[in-house]
């Protein structure tokens, strides 16, 4: 049994496997299928200051080895989370990390301030890369200046672990990563979805109500691994890798490319127990290869 625990800032994970925001609900949705406490962490769905209805249906399209989504941050707001959801998951046996979204810097700060009331929330993941909202979202994530402004404000408001989730829809993601590192982020997670589009040729219209949406799934994994490798070489803070991870082998690609931890996303839709299996498969790989501590292979490439 290898040592799998890793640290992200002051956040300690029992293993490097977390579930990605928007793909695992709040956790209980999957409790019938697996033991949530086997995970390194659960990143709950994007939470905003006020409730959001999200975009119109259709919000999803299947693509080769992937899918497009345009949910648009549907959620009931941070107060609902704090009062109605947090009490039911705070004792689930793993770290619960909240994905924070907003249209303005003060929105982000407002969510973080409310989350300070919740002792068991040791970290937030800041979504500056949502391609499916008109205001904010990706707008902050595609320029170093925008990313820095959100990070700086949250760094003042949030003294626990601050993770910033980066957009892959940029020319040089290392520039954005360095900007958020300079403003005091404890970690960056990448990649959010690639902006994509699909057409229903029989009806001659876009498949999504929003025309474009976010591409996720194994299709994007090579882009994600490349960006993680680039960013891990460009910053000193730990990098969290995600994008198309479906098995232990996929997770190890990210770890070897420089990720300290990973997030499992779309694969949760294909196999609701996959995240727990990935922890086991990483363990098996370590035993098979005489690896005593997962950190031996992090960033080996």
């Amino acid at each position, binding site marked *: 049994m290898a040592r799998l625990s890793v640290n992200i800032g002051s956040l300690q994970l029992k293993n490097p496997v977390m579930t990605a925001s928007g793909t695992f609900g709040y956790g209980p*949705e999957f409790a019938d299928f697996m033991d*949530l406490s086997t995970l390194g962490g659960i990143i709950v769905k994007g939470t905003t200051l006020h409730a959001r209805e999200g975009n119109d249906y259709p919000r999803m399209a299947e693509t080769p080895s*992937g*899918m497009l989504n345009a*949910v648009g941050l*549907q959620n009931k707001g941070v107060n609902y989370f704090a009062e109605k959801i947090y009490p039911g*998951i705070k004792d689930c046996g793993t770290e619960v990390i909240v994905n924070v979204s907003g249209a303005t810097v003060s929105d982000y700060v407002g969510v973080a301030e409310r989350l300070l009331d919740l002792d068991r929330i040791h970290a937030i993941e800041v979504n500056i890369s949502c391609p499916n909202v008109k205001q904010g979202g990706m707008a902050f994530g595609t320029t170093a200046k925008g990313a820095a402004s959100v990070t700086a404000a949250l760094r003042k408001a949030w003294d626990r672990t601050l993770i910033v989730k980066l957009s892959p829809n940029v020319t040089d993601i290392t520039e954005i990563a360095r900007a958020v590192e300079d403003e005091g982020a404890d970690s960056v997670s990448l990649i959010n979805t690639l902006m994509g589009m699909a057409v229903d040729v029989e009806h001659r219209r876009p498949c999504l109500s929003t025309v474009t949406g976010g591409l996720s799934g194994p299709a994007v994994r090579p882009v994600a691994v490349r960006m993680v490798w680039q960013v891990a070489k460009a910053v000193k803070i730990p990098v969290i890798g995600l994008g198309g991870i479906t098995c232990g082998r996929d997770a190890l690609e990210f770890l070897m490319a420089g990720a300290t931890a990973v997030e499992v996303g779309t694969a*949760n*839709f294909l196999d*609701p127990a996959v995240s727990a299996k990935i922890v086991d498969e990483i363990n098996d790989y370590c035993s098979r290869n005489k690896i005593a501590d997962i950190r031996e292979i992090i960033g080996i490439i």
Partner: protein
Amino acid sequence: MKNNSSNPAKVVCDMTVEANTPLGQLYGLLALRADGPLPAISAGQFAQVRIDRSKTTFLRRPISICTADAASGRIELLVRRAGAGTDALLACEPGEKVNLMLPLGRGFSRPAKRDAKALLIGGGVGVAPMLALGLELKAEGYAPEFLLGARTAADLLLLDRFEAIGPVHLTTDDGSAGTRGVVTAHARLQRPVDNIYCCGPKPMMVAVAKAASRIGASCEVSLENMMACGVGACLCCVEKTTKGNVCVCTEGPVFNINQLTWQD
């Protein structure tokens, strides 16, 4: 936060294909058996089926459960060829394993009155949950009637099974069986009905909903929005309701038409 109850409400498991019976060119009936008992399944719930044989099918396919015997771990799925995924599913051979998540979603409610006149309306492959519901209602002492519609006689599926449960009224677009025309034009809707349960193409369900409001019958419909996860995590299959956007996979697939915004 493990669900410690020895029988969780939902499971993901490999099931063995016991039979795969073609029903004409377009449809097939898949009989599946789990290694052990399945959780309680109620009419209107669905399964998320993994399609291993199709290179181009990435997501699971939600398929309404047609009949279920949870104790013996058996279910039947009525499948319509709608693309590479369903084609691959209908190509499965007896003995082959298929991976399913089930049972998912919320099923149909029960009539308020024991002697209620319940009319189960199914269109095309939408008859699947109506068979499950008919069997349950009859077992519980209700006297369900069926109104089944299809393009042609060839598209009227599992008629013998329905006739074994209760009176069956038929309509076809071309008149090759039953009354020519749409279900909502059928004479049965002129006579009293307390509860309508409906599954079929959306235009048909919208028309049935209108008819139900007109005649003052309670009406539940089963929606087929596109889904990814099937458990309320991805928020892709939402339907606009009186409570805003809700997940069809968890709040539905069955909705009372009063919850929906089809009128607007």
